[in-house]
């Protein structure tokens, strides 16, 4: 019951256009005042309950995203904000995307819109927070990377681009 009242949010941008990001940030402002529901933006994924993802998943952010997801202690929930993480949105078919989000990590709440309105995002976060109680608690230490290790890892992109096989010759 306490989980629904204090969802701490870690917010990650995986290639979003900023439109959703500014609306996610806007939930903190006095008009939407997310703190009245205990929604707090935290800087470390270790403190978070809810992971908010904006943007289609670019190839370079994919492994960061899974690392961040692993660092969040159980129980945790994932909110996909905007059309991009839900369905790749307008960027669908781009060679540098691996999304949608639910092919990378399990998603609990989808907030649609391009971008969704702040109150919808807030409501999505609260819905996810209410789902936390029914989630697996999870005990015991699983080895995870430190936050700075996850961040300073060198990016190595595997040349497994899907588009190399099926992209037509410049579309005409």
């Amino acid at each position, binding site marked *: 019951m306490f989980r629904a009242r204090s969802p701490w949010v870690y917010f990650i941008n995986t290639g979003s256009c900023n439109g*959703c990001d*500014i609306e996610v*940030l806007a939930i903190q402002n006095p*008009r939407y005042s997310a703190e009245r529901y205990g929604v707090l933006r935290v800087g470390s994924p270790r403190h978070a309950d809810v992971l908010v993802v904006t943007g289609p998943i670019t190839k370079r952010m994919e492994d960061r995203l899974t690392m961040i997801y692993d660092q969040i202690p159980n129980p945790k929930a994932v909110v996909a904000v905007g059309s991009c993480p839900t369905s790749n949105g307008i960027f669908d078919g781009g060679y540098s995307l691996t999304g949608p989000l639910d092919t990378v990590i399990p998603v609990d709440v989808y907030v649609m819109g*391009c971008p969704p309105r702040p109150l919808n995002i807030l409501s999505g976060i609260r819905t996810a927070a209410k789902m936390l109680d029914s989630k697996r608690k999870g005990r015991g230490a699983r080895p995870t990377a430190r936050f700075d290790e996850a961040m300073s890892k060198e990016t190595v*992109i595997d040349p497994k681009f899907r588009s190399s096989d099926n*992209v037509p*010759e*410049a579309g005409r």
Partner: protein
Amino acid sequence: MAEVNDRGFAKLKVPIGPSHPALEEPARFLFEVEGEKVIDVDYEIGYNHRSIERLCQERPFSKIVYLVERICGICSHAHPLNHVERVEDIADIEVPERAKYIRTIYAELERIHSHMLWAGIAGEEIGYHSLFMYTWREREKVMDLFEMLSGNRVMHGCNKIGGVKWNISDEQARSALGVLSYLDTAADKITKSVLKDSSIAERGKGVGCLSKEDAIRLGAVGPNARASGVAEDTRVMCKYAAYGDFDLEPQIAKDGDVVAQALVRLAELKQSIRLTEELIANLPDGPIQVEYGEIPPGRSVGRVEAPRGELIHYTETNGTRFFERIKIRAPTLANIPSYVPKFLGCQVADIPIIAASIDPCFSCSDRVTVIKDGKRKIVSAQELKTGRI
């Protein structure tokens, strides 16, 4: 982990990003710090690369306006504005005066909301949450205005080739003027608090300085360059849309530090509010869009002053429904090199505010940076065309 140098300071490698509370967007900075002092910095962008330029070649051009709108959610008017102006330039489409004015109104409102957003984010970066709360509360008024005019807070979908989609009724114009006069007093209050507050002065004065020489040498654009005294404003130089009808002065400051950046942006905020009021008052009558026929083959390059600086679009058509090539040079890409002189020798505490000081927009900038096997690779034009990179 930490090696100790001869003066007894531990050298630490501090990664900031790609996901970090100070950065709204993925980009990675690797700082080498000695105690609290930054002695080296390396940056890496490209986390946001969404293959937009390639998608622009794959889709019919009626869809591209929406795609370029989603390059960046904060400059969601500057990109499509530049794009449609390029196509109109190629096809020699004469846009009605009213459409030009409406485009300019949106562009100036976007500058207002973007600069207020920046002031709030800058407050957040130096740990001044009240400034963030105040500016973002007032910014909601601009978002409401956008919603009233176009139906969406962020993605306005206002531009189309040959004009604009949403007209402005008299009633809307009247209530917009009311909001603008409210914003004018809010802008005054923000300026006053930035100027008077000693804790902002403590965190901003002399932090992240960029000299005028460096700004020119490193090709800084927009408010970042103007804060260093470079009087360049694309609105004044290019006179695109309806800017030719108005006299604008580039707002400049001398010091190039964070306070100067803030003052330039706040002066532009005031200037934009006044300009929007003038635009609405002088809104000409007439149609808002014209029909157009085939787009002939051709090429056009043009500049637009986005809130972050000079935005360059290069557009090439080939007579079909598809573009031959669209190349976008976003202002942040030009501003990123100026990070290096700003960061060197600064304190760890100043990293977030310096990072925010150029008002970075990495989603605009991440066009192509291919990193394979951890090494930078040069991409040939043929590879780019076929997508095999």
